[in-house]
């Protein structure tokens, strides 16, 4: 009998009224999780992932069907403590899981509820904190932890229950790449030492780490199997998902390689497959590998002559300096306890100089707490610099005389999770809020709202009278974005616009930004995801500890992969792979910005050199395929 046995469960919010038929519900899900397994549950937003997760330890009870955990039935109330002790749960938002005044008290919460004697709680807590790498932080307030540390604390709280399984519901979505990597490593370690892991995610690179994947779509199990099988066979796009990059790339090269690359789930695997194919194809070829990085032909040189739209010079900001100069310093020992440094630095800016030219797209990257949001809020003068100065359109912003509301309308700022700022009952009123305050009314206002809503892909006629809070999370984010777009800003500043979106919504948003960019809107966005930067940005600015450490055209920035890694930022996997293939003399050197570019470059290398001068693509492909065949025989 499987450890967690989910049989044909159905669930609907709101008692199954016709209106809620579209809500994420379960329509007959069956799942068996064996002891020690590492299973990923994937699916787009609203596919029912979270609903399923909440069933696994009896936080929700199925309307029909059954969930058995280690022989206990979640529908029997007296079994629930035993079930929740066996199956622990980690949620998406780090800050919503904390109940303790100190780190160790928080970790102790579970065992306290189980009435474990206090000496044993102590040993469980100490061990759990050691397992997640929070030794020495026991007496800290959880508020002082970084998001990644909070998530690890949540896992410690789960481990203190001595569970057999841990269910994680999109637990990585609020973390930066560094925090994410640490959490994933921790999961693999726990799994190796016997803990069953159920990891719910919409990120395929994370799902690929599991031994088995379950694809949910519209409340049903759409596919199930090993990662390679799922990625190869299932039509992930129709479920609102994407294949992992390495697999996508190898699929695009398939017509040149005849499938000789197999189904690599990650870039190292793809790289070795490519190396062997390339070696067989042209064993002696050693292309020159020291070609210089090409300059991206962006408009930067052309528009350099014009005055920049926004110019920051020597801008500094620190959060407490102005108000409390007498505040005593924290004792030194507090900063670094037990070898663990406090990485929740107070976001502050140190002498930032930055020019934003009209029409360009800038990606602002940096680890959590590096001051990205603070910098973005200087761009539209929500923050005025404590030192240094800001110029907009060549005019210095002087606080006492500047028309700040007008600057804020010209440089629209979309905050992180804009869906959380919504307040109006109807979508139309929500979007109209900004333009109305700017004095727009009547027909002009209607037209403006119509334009903004259609721009984000919400048809005006059918959405303007919808209830704001009844929309899905993805739609709410679009409303938030439309609320700023309705100001018709010259420049759009976005703080992590794609964070937490599923792949389909993310693609939609990127397409929207691309469109705005082509229409001439200046865009500055912060992101953890350099793949996004590669697709949309002309320029990358890296902010670390409140200082600009790198400000280069995207292509040149990507060439600094090692530097970026040191700041817990990761260039897309294909960049590193092409670089190492180039070092081996197998492809022309050069940094690809997008997966498409990487595919083109590899395709060129897969065409045999003696015929590379000008065969038709089909010929080249068949030649490539033949070459591979010959090598394989």
């Amino acid at each position: 009998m499987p450890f967690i046995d989910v049989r044909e469960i159905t669930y609907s919010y709101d008692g199954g009224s016709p209106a809620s038929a579209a809500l994420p519900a379960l329509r007959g899900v069956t799942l068996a999780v064996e002891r020690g397994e590492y299973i990923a549950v994937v699916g787009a937003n609203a596919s029912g992932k979270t609903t399923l997760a909440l069933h696994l330890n009896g936080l929700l009870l199925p309307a029909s069907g059954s969930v058995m955990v280690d022989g206990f039935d979640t529908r029997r109330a007296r079994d629930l403590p035993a079930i929740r002790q066996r199956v622990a749960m980690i949620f998406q938002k780090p800050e919503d899981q904390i109940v303790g005044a100190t780190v160790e008290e928080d970790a102790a919460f579970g065992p306290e509820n189980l009435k474990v004697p206090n000496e044993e709680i102590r040993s469980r807590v100490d061990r759990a904190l050691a397992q997640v790498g929070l030794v020495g932080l026991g007496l800290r307030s959880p508020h002082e932890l970084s998001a990644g540390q909070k998530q690890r604390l949540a896992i410690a709280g789960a481990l203190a229950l001595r569970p057999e399984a841990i269910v994680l519901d999109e637990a990585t979505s609020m973390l930066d790449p560094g925090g994410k990597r640490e959490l994933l490593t921790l999961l693999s370690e726990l799994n190796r030492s016997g803990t069953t892991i159920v990891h719910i995610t919409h990120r395929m690179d994370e799902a690929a780490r599991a031994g088995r994947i379950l694809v949910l779509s519209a409340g049903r199990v759409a596919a199930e199997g090993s990662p390679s099988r799922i990625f190869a066979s299932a039509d992930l796009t129709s479920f609102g998902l994407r294949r992992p990059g390495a697999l996508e790339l190898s699929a695009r090269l398939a017509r040149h390689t005849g499938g000789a690359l197999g189904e690599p789930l990650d870039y190292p695997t793809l790289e070795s497959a490519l190396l062997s194919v390339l070696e067989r194809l042209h064993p002696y070829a050693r292309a020159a590998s020291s070609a210089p990085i090409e300059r991206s032909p962006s408009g930067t040189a052309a528009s350099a002559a014009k005055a920049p739209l926004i110019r920051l010079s020597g801008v500094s900001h620190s959060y407490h300096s102005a108000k409390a100069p007498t505040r005593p310093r924290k004792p030194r020992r507090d900063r670094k306890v037990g070898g663990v440094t406090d990485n929740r630095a107070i976001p502050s800016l140190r002498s930032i100089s930055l020019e934003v030219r009209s029409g360009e797209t800038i990606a602002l990257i940096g680890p959590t707490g590096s001051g990205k949001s603070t910098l973005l809020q200087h761009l539209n003068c929500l923050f005025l610099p404590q030192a240094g100065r800001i110029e907009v359109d060549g005019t210095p912003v002087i606080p006492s005389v500047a028309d700040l509301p007008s600057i804020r309308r010209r440089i629209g700022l979309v905050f992180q999770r804009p869906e959380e700022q919504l307040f109006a009952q109807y979508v139309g009123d929500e979007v109209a809020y900004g333009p109305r305050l700017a004095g727009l009314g009547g027909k002009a206002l209607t037209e403006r709202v119509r334009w903004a809503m259609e721009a984000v892909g919400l048809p005006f006629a059918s959405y303007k009278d919808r209830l704001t809070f009844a929309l899905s999370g993805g739609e709410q984010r679009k409303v938030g974005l439309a609320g700023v777009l309705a100001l018709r800003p010259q420049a759009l500043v976005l703080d992590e616009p794609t964070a937490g979106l599923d792949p389909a919504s993310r693609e939609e948003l990127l397409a929207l930004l691309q469109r705005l960019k082509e229409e001439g809107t200046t865009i500055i966005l912060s992101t953890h995801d350099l793949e996004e930067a590669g697709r949309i940005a002309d320029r990358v600015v890296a902010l670390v500890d409140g200082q600009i450490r790198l400000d280069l055209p995207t292509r040149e920035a990507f060439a600094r992969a090692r530097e970026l890694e040191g700041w817990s930022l990761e260039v897309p996997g294909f960049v590193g792979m092409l670089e190492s293939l180039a070092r081996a003399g197998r492809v022309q050197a050069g940094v690809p910005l997008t997966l498409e570019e990487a595919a083109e470059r590899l395709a060129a290398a897969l065409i045999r050199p003696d015929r590379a001068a000008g065969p038709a693509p089909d010929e080249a492909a068949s030649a490539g395929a033949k070459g591979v065949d010959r090598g394989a025989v």
Partner: protein
Amino acid sequence: MEQFDVTSTLQFARYVPGDSPFHRLHPGAKALLLLFGLAALIIVHGTAGLVLALALILVVTLAAGVPLAVPLSSLARALPWLLVIVVVQILTVPSARWGADYGGWWIFTLRGGQLYTAVTSLLRFADLILFLGLGSAVTRVDELAYAGEALTSPFARFGLPSRELSLIITIALYFTPLFSEEAARIRKSQAARGADFSTKGLGLLRRVRAYLPLFVPLLVLALHHAENLARAMEARCYTVKMGRTRLHTYPVRSLDVVAGGMAAAIVALAILHPAHGWDQTVQALFGPRG
């Protein structure tokens, strides 16, 4: 911009790690000392008792290994407000019109008694602030929550949910700075859309309406937080009607009993006010009564 930076004002209670006898007191004893001490500072009248209390507080602060800069800096920040309160007080307390006459202006007069009142008020507020600073410097937040539970536990048999109470205190303390951050963020994001929250000159209804874009999202967030937190607690085996054990237990030691006795003695002293004679000497410096 300063108007959005709420967190910087929330710097009142600061724990200073240490291992002094005061740090190691039972949380319940600390809370009793704190409550009784505050009561004594409010009851005591006359400069003598207040000066004595000030000396005692400073000695204990030093003995607890708390740098004097910690309580003094919070006093320094409160000083402008204190001065305003004191000025208002001496102008509005009629019983202070005694003693030497230092002249007057318009409807105000300045008498020695008013100066005396000003000195005692300032001293009292300074004592209160320094004492609270001392209390928070030697008491961790979790101890505070435990103290709430310890002191209310006698009433548990009458149905008072004392353990839940301490949990509520803890969670509230954790969520307060979180919410002030959220509030600042929402305020800024509405400002980015052109909102202006300076509502001078608006009627009540319009003022409320102007703040809706701030209150509604905050309420929604609060409800989401509450729902998520409840779920996370449930997932960790929490149910309301059920005994729980504790990571930290605090056995009552003899030192705690001594501290409790001292707390009672301090209140008694404040009521009996043995320094009465000395006070009259001080008052005489400000001129004759009557």
